[in-house]
């Protein structure tokens, strides 16, 4: 067990450092995935397989995919290392790190070495059934509140994304045609009107939107 702990803890720390140091955002994202997966392995060694699985599915499998997706779409270049802002915070950071380190030392050398500390007992706290039982009995109310919070976040995201210019869900998009909503023609006249307007060619679409290039059309 100790070997596995050292292996995965080392991997997690290494990936975390690499995440901060890397200048290419995609490498940082890959390092972060490495951190998540090493943490999941640590959870397995701590007898919490359910939490480990959820860690991989949710963080590594869903959230980081979206992050990688965005980085790929934006085609972010390597960041230039600029002058350090917030230089005044360095002493505070060092101090906090020292406190954390002291805490770890205290636990290892004083609490765990103390004969009065109760020995570790095997528990099934990380197992699927105990987590499920807890969620649906003792912690039912917080669980439901969290669900509603998440639902609100989803609805909010959709509402924010839908402000104008979007097509109605029923607009059929045929390859080769240019389709936009009526609202894009005149924002004052058709407010929130998502009726699709279909045009057969780019020139027709430019004409309708009033953005056609006058010079080119006069030449042809």
């Amino acid at each position, binding site marked *: 067990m100790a070997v596995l702990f050292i292996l995965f803890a080392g991997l997690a720390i290494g990936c975390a450092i690499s995440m901060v140091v890397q200048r290419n955002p*995609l490498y940082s994202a*890959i390092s972060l*995935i490495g951190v998540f*997966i090493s943490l999941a392995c640590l959870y397995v060694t701590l007898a919490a397989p359910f939490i480990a*699985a959820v860690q991989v599915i949710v963080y590594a499998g869903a959230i980081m*995919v979206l992050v*990688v*997706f965005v980085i*790929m779409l934006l085609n972010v270049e390597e960041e230039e290392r600029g002058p350090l802002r917030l230089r005044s915070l360095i002493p505070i950071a060092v101090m906090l790190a020292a406190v954390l380190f002291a805490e770890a030392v205290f636990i290892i050398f004083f609490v765990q070495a103390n004969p009065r500390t109760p020995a570790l007992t095997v528990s099934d706290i990380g197992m699927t059934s105990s987590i499920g039982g807890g969620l649906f009995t003792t912690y039912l109310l917080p669980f439901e509140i969290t669900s509603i919070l998440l639902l609100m976040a989803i609805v909010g995201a959709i509402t924010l994304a839908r402000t104008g210019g979007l097509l109605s869900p029923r607009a059929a998009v045929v390859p080769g045609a240019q389709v936009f909503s009526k609202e894009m023609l005149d924002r004052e006249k058709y407010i929130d009107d998502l009726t699709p307007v279909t045009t057969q060619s780019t020139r027709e679409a430019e004409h309708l939107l009033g953005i056609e290039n006058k010079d080119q059309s006069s030449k042809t």
Partner: protein
Amino acid sequence: MEDLKHLVLLIIGILVAFFVVMTMVAYTVLAERRVLGFIQGRLGPNRVGPGGFLQPLADLLKFIFKEDIVPDKSTRFVYFLAPMIATIAALMTMVVYPFGPKITLPLIGSIDGLVIARFDVALLYVLGVTSVGVYGIALAGWSSNNKYSLMGGLRAASQMISYELALGLGLIGVVLQSGTLDLYSIVEQQAGHLGISGWNLIWVQPLGFIIYLIAAIAETNRVPFDLPEAETELVAGFHTEYSAMKFALFFLAEYVNMFTVSMLATTLFLGGWNGPFVHQLPWLGMFYFLGKVVFFLFFYIWLRGTLPRFRFDQLMIFGWKFLVPAAIINIVLTATLQWLGVFDYFSQFLKTQTGFWG
């Protein structure tokens, strides 16, 4: 001593499973080409060995000896990492599938089920590892520095995220019913008369099975959901810039994924190794299991020879507006029926063992 024996058995198990799966994957490729040939009224490869039997070996040699071309402007590290992620993620799920029941071997004694690793959250492990496999494809598309590759990678990533949801939700019905995430117990619960009547597919999860099957085909990027490598639009999609062994790794990952997805379908819906007379002859179980998997693989090939490809907007609409709601309906329905005790009533007839047929 006992630990050592356990470790040796484990390593042997991994090697055997790896060998069996790899061989079957290699011959799936051959079978695909032959069956497609049959469907399209032509012969397919039949020159190497009797009936083309050695074709996989020839293909492998060809992949090894081809020139390995790395694009000049690619992002080197990620370019090499991507095929590895894809293959490793595909192969890692293999360890949790129960290949057979408890058997007794000469010399070694009895083995408690032909499964390499049996643990509490096997099903979640499968879903988690599969979801990591997306990176292989997405990063391959990005690092190649090629527009077609990037489009293919983006398509693959968005498709796999979308269908992963339907896939996971489709499986919840089975989990609700068996009350466990351990694949071995799920298989054990599906024993019934002649090892057939207890299958989840027939009696209790027909909707879940259909949702899983469709989502699984989309997850593995196969026809009719093979948009990430739609050759008429994207050349070869995310692996356009890959050659030689690195291409072979993607190829391998795709077929291993097909295989593991079929194994999961067999395990959860078709009763795993259950079948007639398994209780008298436990070895039969392994052949039943592999036989059912082969049926699914054939189904994949059959679909490829039959169906045209989806358009991308159709794909997304189908996934989000049909499969996900259907999966949610399935969950609610299963939970309601479970609560009303309908399944218990059923299982009195279907899932109980009788002495004679057993």
